[in-house]
């Protein structure tokens, strides 16, 4: 007896609403091209939040890779030289000290223990802390005027990723995915690699009140070994009991049962949606497995990212994976260098250690993206949750400073070899072209072709957006 006899044929799409057909197409059925999906999306309202959508205006970046340095790397020791500190080492801070985290433990001004040099054609000053990234100076757009309000890590992370630490709100990656949808339905559209479990944890990649499917998918978490993660990069991705062929056979049975059941409820589109979700899950198992397996990369590439050295192997794997996900059209990708940058003491020693873990992988990623032609439409962002104070803490460390700090971007339409904004002479407050986190969000969305004022979602009776009631796009950073 052949099982196929029991499988009721899928109803022809004409029996279904256009909505169901669109969903089927969105799930990756090959019978409709992307253009027709987009055309349909334009002509009818979709209930599938992942359907590809046209941006508000032409985008310069199709996707984002966010390299997050958890703990708060010091700007004035890396990308924002402060000669004033060299000249006034040990002297008291001549301005009123703003609210700090480690009140009472802070001392006078402390000069940077690293040397700054002008790098590349552009002459951007970068310290000896990041020798490899310094070689990519001409690709960087250094923003020295970031401003946030979170004085502690939790508040600062939540504000960096969701815009607020007072409320629970969707993360910026979720907003981007909600705004643009995703073109590869065999992978999640928003992936965060080894994210932090502390300081807001999953709230930093959650979809908040946006539809659940736009939430970030975590690949492992900070503290996990890469070898552990590789066993099952996405939770529930691997079936332990059946091989792929057998599982397909079982899935055919599930669908046969579903098709019979569907005959009773022929006006209910939801049933078809769930049937298709199983087909997509089955494809995702195969597709994700391929993407997460980096063994096929050439030795030269692995070396470029530092996979061959224990110190750089972890973050190198993250960066290499980020490139592979970018190639697979994942919309928003995040790598996290785990909570190490919080140098309240031993700044020189520990910052050197941390930098040694990320410097080569990040430079490798930039070079690789460039060589493959991906950098032009991939926006790479390097940032911590804040910078560190020009005054010392515990003698040889620095406290948190959200009032003026540096991030950098590369690719995705930003000006290469460019410095934007400035802090005051001490490196405490942003003084020129202040880019508040709301502005940063507005600007990143703009690179992706989204107007932060129009990217809204109605919840609890009113329209919400990532930038709340604020946010200005800083157009000057775009080429």
């Amino acid at each position: 007896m052949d099982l196929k006899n029991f499988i009721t044929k899928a109803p022809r799409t004409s029996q279904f609403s256009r909505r169901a057909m669109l969903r089927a197409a969105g799930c990756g059925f090959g019978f409709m091209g992307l253009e027709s999906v987009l055309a349909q999306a334009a002509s009818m309202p979709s209930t599938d939040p992942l359907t590809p959508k046209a941006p508000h205006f032409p985008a310069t970046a199709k996707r984002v890779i966010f390299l997050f340095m958890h703990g708060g790397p010091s700007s004035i020791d890396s990308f924002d030289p402060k000669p004033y500190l060299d000249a006034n080492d040990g002297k008291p801070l001549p301005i009123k000290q703003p609210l700090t985290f480690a009140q009472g433990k802070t001392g006078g001004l402390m000069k940077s223990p690293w040397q700054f040099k002008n790098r590349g054609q552009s002459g951007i000053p970068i310290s000896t802390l990041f020798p490899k990234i310094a070689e990519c100076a001409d690709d960087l757009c250094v923003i020295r005027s970031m401003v946030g309000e979170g004085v502690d890590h939790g508040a600062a992370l939540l504000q960096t990723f969701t815009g607020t630490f007072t409320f629970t709100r969707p993360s910026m990656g979720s907003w981007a995915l909600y705004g643009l949808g995703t073109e590869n339905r065999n992978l999640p559209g928003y992936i965060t690699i080894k994210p932090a479990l502390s300081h807001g944890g999953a709230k930093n990649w959650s979809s908040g009140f946006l539809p659940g499917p736009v939430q970030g998918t975590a690949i492992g978490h900070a503290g996990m070994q890469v070898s552990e993660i590789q066993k099952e990069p996405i939770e529930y991705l691997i079936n332990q009991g059946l091989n792929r062929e057998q599982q397909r056979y079982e899935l055919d049975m599930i669908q046969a049962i579903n098709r019979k059941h569907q005959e009773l409820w022929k006006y209910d589109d939801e049933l078809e949606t769930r049937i298709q979700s199983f087909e997509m899950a089955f494809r995702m198992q195969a597709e994700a497995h391929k993407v997460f397996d980096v063994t096929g990369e050439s030795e030269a590439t692995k070396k470029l990212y530092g996979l061959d050295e224990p110190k750089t192997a972890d973050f190198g794997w993250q960066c290499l994976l980020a490139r592979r996900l970018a190639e697979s059209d994942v919309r928003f990708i995040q790598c996290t260098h785990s909570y190490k940058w919080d140098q309240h003491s031993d700044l020189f020693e520990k910052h050197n250690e941390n930098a040694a873990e990320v410097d080569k992988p990040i430079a490798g990623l930039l070079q690789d993206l460039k060589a493959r032609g991906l950098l032009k439409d991939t926006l790479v962002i390097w940032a911590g949750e804040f910078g560190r104070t020009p005054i010392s803490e515990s003698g040889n460390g620095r406290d948190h400073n959200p009032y003026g700090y540096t991030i950098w971007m590369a690719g995705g339409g930003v000006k290469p070899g460019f410095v934007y904004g400035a802090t005051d002479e001490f490196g405490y407050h942003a003084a020129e072209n202040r880019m508040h986190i709301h502005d940063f969000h507005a600007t990143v969305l703009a690179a992706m072709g989204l107007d932060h004022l129009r990217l809204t979602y109605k919840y609890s009776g009113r329209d919400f957006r990532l930038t709340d009631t604020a946010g200005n796009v800083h157009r000057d950073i775009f080429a």
Partner: protein
Amino acid sequence: MILRRIQVVSAVAFLSVAPAFSQTPAQVELFEKYARPVFMEKCAGCHNEKLKSGGLDLTSTDALRQVAGSGIFGEAAHPEKSVLLKALAYEDRVRMPPQGKLPDATIEGIKEWLTAGAPIPGAATVSAEPGSGTGLRAVALRGKITEEDKKYWAFKPLVKPDVPAVKNTAWAGTAIDKFILAKLEGAGLQPAAPTTKTTLLRRATFDLTGLPPTEKELADFLADKSPKAFEKVVDRLLASPRYGERWGRHWLDVMRYADSTGSDEDHRYPHAWRYRDYVIDAFNADMPYDQFVREQLAGDILAADPNSNTGYRGVVATGFLALGKKALAQKDLPLKRYDVVDDQIEVTAKAFMGLTVNCARCHDHKFDPIATKDYYQLAGVFASTTSYAKLAEGEPIQTPLVPAEKFETFRKAWTDYLDVEKKIAKIIDFDKDAKKARDAEEANIARYMLGDQTLDPKKLAAWSAYLKSDAPELAKWRAATDANRKEIAQQYQEEFRRGAYQYDQDLSWWKGARNSYPNSGKIAGPRPAVSKVKDPFFYAVWLDPKGPAYRSKDEQIATLQPEKATELRALMAQSATLEKTLPTEEIPMASAVREGEAVKQHVFLRGDYHNEGDEVDHTPPMILRVNAPALPVKTNSGRLELANWIVDSRNPLPARVMANRIWQGHFGDGIVRTPDNFGRLGERPSNPELLDYLATSFMENGWSVKKMHRLIMLSNTYQMSAEYDAVKKEKDPENRLLSHFPRLRLSIEQIRDSYLAIGGDLDLKMGGTLDPGVGTDGETSANRISMNPEATTRRSVYLPLRRSNLPTLWMLFDFGDATTPDGKRSATTVSTQALFVLNSPLVNREAQALAERVMAASKSDQQRVESLYLKILNRKPDAQEIESGMAYVKDLQGKWKDIGPQKAWQSYSHALMASNEFIYIY
């Protein structure tokens, strides 16, 4: 600086335009549109009546006229010369606001207003109206209760409506049916036929208990031909303890229940689970809802009154106020305090009254008659309630549920012991000292392994002995070749470093937590241990007494001066003695609030506590007092008075809101589909008369929730089939009128608990906690993630919830965030849910267990298929389904040699468990 400048300008004030006191509407509009928002949002933080930064108060029209008199606004003909504009344009040394230049468009607006002569509305136009108290308000609408407000449906007094006349009297057996049918007939629709008994039993059992019916329950119900058969089922289900676990969870969604603080540090609330158990018990005991509300809001105050018969239960009941999200590391202390107050107001208003009032923290509600003043009246109640034991340190309050002396004995014994431990650490911190030595060794590990002869010979010998051992973790080392030995040694060194990092973190969090155990009435568990399995190299090198980097306590003590060592040994002996007498029984405690000092609450202008407006009373919002007058406040906070006022029968909202929640629990959608928002931004009721009928019945029946279930479930409306046709879909696509029963998706708790029940593994033990810890865990520790739902067989409602990292499974199936009140979950369908159903070890394990049981119980394949249908889909299969199932099991085994009968039946069970029919209720 700015003060001096203004004095200079004042000297030439006679040149400036005289501020106009009689204004045209167009002029007033310029002020409202451009000037007022800037003054209020950007300047009022410093330039207010209290701070008067630079001598300027920009927060009232009177003050503004005075400011105008100083000439700061300049001449209408030359606005660019005005001091104000120069400061805003960042053209001068004085740059305002200091946080950053305003957008050009905003400055242009101010210029336009200046060009018009800086008009300021006369006193009559914006004088503070009663209820506002903000003085200068962006929208001068609210605070005055209009007739229209009073007529808004949700605020109208509750009156029992007449039951409407209907045509199809044969169908409409109950009043509920008549209310439903009247709307259907009005729309030209008819109700669906009654559903089958089989379907009805599945529907009702999942509805009331969150679990599927057993085969016996189905057989009994089918056999019972009496007209009361279903009524008996409903009563049986309502009497089951499973009922409280299912319906208590609905309430916990509204109360945004979780077991940790969320936000930044995500510390555990070690006693929050007692509130969860209280809710489950309350539903099981059918506690009258008015009492339920009173106990949750003011149970601690009731407990203090022996006549109230509340006792410690009342203390536990206030848990919902105590277990909200908290930013423990927040340095701005008043903000920290009022963020908690804000959370408490949000839950109280949404849960009991279906109102969103939190926007009024900064401005009057733009749509509902809730003024800023109303918000701060409630804020006064909760600001006078204590939620933190220590605000600055971020220690939430915990209340012992035993006499104070007993708790004090416990706390003192543990604290004394820990104090001695602290004294020991002052002489030598064994862990720190060991770490220091280890750090020094760490960088040399590769060199030791490679036998660098410049290093300490004794240690080299220890290393050499270890490397020669047959320890399994050294397999990679043994396999190293000359070409890669150096690299491999580096890898070992790195592995060690990672292990050390994680261990240090875990240890430091444990130590931090240990000191707070006594205050929690809890006894600290053992020190974190390094797993020999997970981190064998790190363990072998450093913690094994034979390890090359091991450092014994004696070695550590030997580094001390003799007299210090003597002192230390005495302290260690003392510690050992104290340790023997430590209490071994934990003290039951609650995460609860208590009465604090009564604050004089002021309105905070624009939500900023620096910026105080009028003082307010501790009392409910004005619009709600129209129906039910508020009692004078006698307790410190006014919490008890608030609670009593909420359940005053003249107050129409609580009964309406709860009746709607109960209806929603049965039908998926409420009569109002925004259960937490009955305001103007919420949806209107689809059947207002029915809602009022339910609400009045609720109060008439002594606020009994179980009686509401009976009332609803014994109606023909509840017992309709879910079938519908094209006409119904066309006329009422969202089934708002209920012409048929809706299709509902199981919640994640129902899905998981059912799988466990079907597999025979569900543990029905009730209550208690599955997480005995306090504090939080290492920054990168997996312990930060909420308990894995795969790791226990207890019912889902008992799984502890760590707010910052809820289980992936919960997030996949629309659980919500356990941080904001959420009276209604969504039901999405995405492929990652399918991954869980297909691949989760739990689902596959239960399918296997089920297959084994069914195979053992019956020998015939047909019986096995029938049994699986009954257990999973709670119905009998038809002939085609039996044939198909048997064929599948046979085919699987024929196709693959590695699939035997057991695996084949497992796969078939799994297919049925994964099916659409399983996950939907009809």
